């Protein structure tokens, strides 16, 4: 309710068409015939930039994305140098120097595709954080072993474990696929 009131007030105040404050997609012609005040009101962040197409969702927003090569607005405002380059662009492109071509690109776009898709090196930070965490854990484990754990039981010695293995064989433990299946009961030796 408040939103429609604001809209009516704005419309009355600026005498702008319904199309101008609609939430549907912008067209290149929409912004070009507005005054500066009207432009500030309807497209607050647009500045002096041209609307050049639909963009990725119809809003006059600039964004660098691989899958949308043509944003809805140019990146930079139309300053005098940019206007001069545009005028030169109307002629033969072979007359443009490399610097001028680059200038025209940078006026319309923020990053090249190469810059957009360049690796960030974030993986180094991630690996560094991981190694720090692991090394801290390692110190905790060392402390646990030296200061916290009680002594090992007497059944952990090698002799006891050998005696256990013999007992397991005598009891026929693991007769199918386990330890006793590896013992030859006739020859009294391991298979």
């Amino acid at each position, binding site marked *: 309710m408040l939103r429609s009131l604001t809209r009516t007030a704005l419309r009355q105040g600026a005498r702008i068409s319904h199309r101008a404050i609609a939430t549907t997609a912008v067209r290149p012609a929409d912004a070009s015939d507005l005054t500066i005040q009207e432009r500030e009101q309807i497209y607050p962040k647009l500045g002096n930039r041209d609307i050049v197409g639909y963009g990725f969702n119809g809003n006059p927003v600039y964004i660098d994305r691989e899958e949308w090569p043509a944003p809805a607005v140019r990146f930079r405002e139309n300053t005098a140098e940019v206007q001069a380059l545009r005028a030169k662009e109307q002629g033969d492109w072979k007359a443009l120097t490399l610097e001028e071509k680059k200038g025209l690109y940078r006026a319309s776009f923020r990053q090249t595709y190469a810059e957009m898709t360049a690796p960030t090196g974030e993986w180094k930070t991630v690996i560094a954080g991981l190694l720090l965490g692991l090394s801290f854990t390692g110190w905790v484990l060392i402390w646990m072993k030296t200061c916290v754990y009680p002594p090992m039981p007497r*059944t952990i010695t090698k002799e*006891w474990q050998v005696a256990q293995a013999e007992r397991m064989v005598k009891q026929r*433990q693991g007769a199918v696929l386990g330890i006793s299946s590896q013992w030859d009961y006739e020859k009294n030796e391991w298979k």
Partner: protein
Amino acid sequence: MAHWGQLMFQDAASPIMIQLVALHDHALTIMIMVVSLVLYMLYSILTNKFTCRTLLEAQEIETIWTVLPATILVVLALPSLRLLYLMDEISQPTLTVKTIGHQWYWSYEYSDFLNLEFDSYMLPTEELQDGEFRLLEVDHRMVIPMQTEVRLLVTAADVIHSWCVPSLGIKLDGIPGRLNQTTLSINRPGIFYGQCSEMCGANHSFMPIALEVIDHPSFTQWVMTFSE
């Protein structure tokens, strides 16, 4: 009992456990196939440089990946339910043994005979002989004859305990005031170990089960020596 570094099931000693291992193999096979497929799909999507901005609907694949998992689930459920009901079957047991869980020992009663009851306490680590198994040995083992159907009734005297022997595929809660019944039928002689499987207090980890399975003549002899 498990050997060092054992990850999978202990060798089966009863027909039910054999079936349980087979069901597990079946389920794990299906699981490995599904997981491989999912990992492959994940990998191929993540390493694909293309983008599709206009993905919408796709009725055919939606149908496939609804019907196929449903079929897989039926293929999983049928053997599982079969075994579940098989485990509940009681035929004609020749022997009945009552197992009562206490804090913190098991007691066994063979009511088919006169005055055959005893307690089974864990052997403390200090009292173990060379080669005996720590936390598994008991002073009096539960003795039963092999290849005989034995009815097992499990209950408890104080808190809930659980009588578990992995190589027989048995885990049965002993609940005070309740008798839980199952059948044991063991293929081969030997000693089968297990541990209490329901939190029951301070010494819950120190009340193991040791089942000694012997042939019929030896069992008869044991019963007779016991009554003396």
